[in-house]
């Protein structure tokens, strides 16, 4: 937070610079001394992990761009050349491809943490919305990046997703043509996607700066959801959270490395190692795992435009969330009823992800029931995704608004320090296990 700088330039050079560009003072105030609630648990380390992942994606991506050729005749071969001939090309590409998955894993945990502790509520609405913008940009960047290797999944994924926009009335087709640069997905499409894939990560980096700025105005939320009352409630960011984040990053990198070195293709699709062929569609088109919940929502609706609108509506809903949740209590630790609905929400999101990876007519249990409701068997993935889709929207548009007015929350502690100091019994078991709660 501004206005409490403790920086004292020690050398002549530092004093000289400080009166001209106080960048050292700025870094010390925001990255070292920044007062941070002392009760942040490991769910709060994912912001740092995400910053690292963005850095890794930028670094590996810039290197890959030195060897990649954005042309339909050469793109696939140039990626294979990176894999076989470029020194350490295999490592850099696997880091980039799996890095995208790790980035999304971390962002989903970061968002769910946010939903649980109510961090999107006043005064952090702008912080939350900027996060949603970053998430949207990440999805665009990841989709465009997946097209670049120009394999079968790349090509037909691009066809399907750009056709989604064509569902919009009137403006749909001109926008699709504008994206394609021709009558179909082809070389002009690949060229502009490469250009945009290079651009968007830097846009993300810009929004991340705004995101951190918006974080540093109100300061961090914390697992109790109670505002910081005094200096007793905080510790300086360094060394307390640099060390904690550092440890979390090391553990996260172990997971990342296990994919890169031992299972680099498990999250991808074998079909993408077949060069793109516009005349043959792979039998089973599925997006990358991080898009599956939205893909399931898209397919849950039997109408093309309806499906597209609902899918974008799922993302749009996140933007207005701060005004949908009517509860004054931030943390779900003190909202036992809401907590129950929250865990069902997380479960339903996972169900949507599962459905997105299955064929719509596949039975959920055993064999089809033979009982048809509307257009599909009642025991099918499409009906399971409909149930989960309804819950997804009901959670935001019905449960959170109503529950905030009707539920009786548990007593909220006076301050952050109170439950920390009067340890075990008064702290209800929250989401986090607690070796880290030693203030």
């Amino acid at each position, binding site marked *: 937070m501004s206005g409490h700088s403790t920086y004292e330039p020690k050398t002549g050079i530092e004093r000289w610079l400080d009166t001209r560009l106080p960048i050292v003072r700025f870094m010390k105030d925001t990255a070292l001394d920044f007062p941070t609630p002392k009760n942040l648990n490991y769910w709060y380390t994912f912001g740092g992990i995400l910053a690292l992942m963005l850095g890794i994606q930028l670094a590996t991506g810039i290197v890959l761009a030195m060897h990649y050729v954005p042309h339909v005749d050469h793109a696939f071969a140039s990626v294979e050349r990176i894999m076989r001939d470029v020194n350490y090309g295999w490592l850099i590409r696997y880091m980039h491809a799996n890095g995208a998955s790790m980035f999304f894993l971390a962002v989903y945990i970061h968002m769910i943490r946010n939903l649980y502790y109510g961090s999107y509520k006043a005064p952090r609405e702008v912080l939350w919305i900027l996060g949603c913008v970053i998430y949207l940009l990440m999805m665009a960047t990841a989709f465009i990046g997946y097209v670049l290797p120009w394999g079968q999944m790349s090509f*037909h994924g691009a*066809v*399907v997703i*750009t*056709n*989604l926009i064509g569902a919009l009335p009137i403006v749909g087709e001109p926008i699709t*043509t*504008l*994206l*394609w*640069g*021709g*009558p*179909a*997905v*082809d070389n*002009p499409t690949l060229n*502009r996607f490469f250009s945009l894939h290079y651009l968007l990560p830097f846009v993300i980096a810009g929004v991340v700066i705004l995101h951190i700025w918006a974080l540093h105005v109100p300061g961090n939320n914390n697992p109790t959801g109670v505002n910081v009352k005094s200096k007793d409630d905080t510790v300086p960011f360094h060394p307390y959270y640099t060390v904690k984040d550092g440890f979390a990053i090391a553990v996260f990198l172990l997971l990342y490395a296990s994919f890169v070195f031992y299972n680099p293709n498990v999250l991808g699709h074998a079909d993408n190692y077949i060069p793109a062929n*516009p*005349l*043959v*569609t*792979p*039998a*089973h*088109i599925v997006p990358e795992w991080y898009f599956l919940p939205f893909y399931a929502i898209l*397919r849950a609706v*039997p*109408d*093309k435009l309806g*499906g597209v609108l609902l899918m974008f509506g799922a993302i749009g809903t996140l933007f207005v969330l701060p005004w949908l949740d009517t509860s004054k209590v931030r943390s779900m630790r003190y909202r036992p009823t809401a907590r129950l609905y929250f865990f069902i929400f997380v479960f339903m999101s996972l169900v949507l992800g599962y459905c997105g990876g299955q064929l*719509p*007519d596949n039975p959920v249990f055993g064999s089809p029931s033979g009982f048809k409701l509307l257009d599909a068997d009642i025991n099918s993935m499409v009906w399971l995704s409909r149930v989960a889709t309804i819950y997804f929207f009901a959670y935001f548009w019905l449960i959170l608004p109503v529950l905030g007015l009707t539920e009786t929350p548990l007593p909220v502690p006076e301050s952050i320090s109170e439950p920390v100091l009067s340890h075990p019994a008064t702290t209800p078991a929250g989401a986090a296990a607690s070796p880290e709660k030693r203030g």
Partner: protein
Amino acid sequence: MADTVAGANPDTHGAGDDPSRRDFIHIAAGAAAVGAVAGVAWPLIDQMNPAGDTLALSSIEFDLGKVAPGQQVVVKWRGKPLFVRNRSPEQIAAAVKDDNAGDLRDPQTDEERHKPGKAEWLVLIGTCTHLGCVPTVGGGDYGGWFCPCHGSHYDLSGRIRKGPAPRNLQVPEYVFLSDTSIKVG
């Protein structure tokens, strides 16, 4: 520059500083700036539309002799697959019989989907009208095409009968150059 806002503080202005004239200058300058930005933005957007050489590659000729009765040949046209199907008399009869079927979502008769007197030749753009996948020939409940992506069924006339696709498979512009050759586009 707060004091230049029209009418904000008219007393401080001397004679001749008519607020409405300042308004005019502000509006005119603003409009000119908006026009200039739009003028520069349009080329930057329109460059993404199909280029001249892309548009030039837009028609092909095809020799129908390559397609045996009952068979389909797929050719690439404007980056998309083009289905050229030589229908057998039974297949034509089946398609005509369904002209008034109740489940036609985008009602068209078989007659409207081929050139007059050339009922055996069905020429279609081979992208599903749902999300653009390529349907497989001979599949589905109606013997026409089946799209593997999201399960759209097309009949022997390429009309959508079941599944999420909203429209029939599109018939491109084409002409018969002779009995055995067509020009598409």
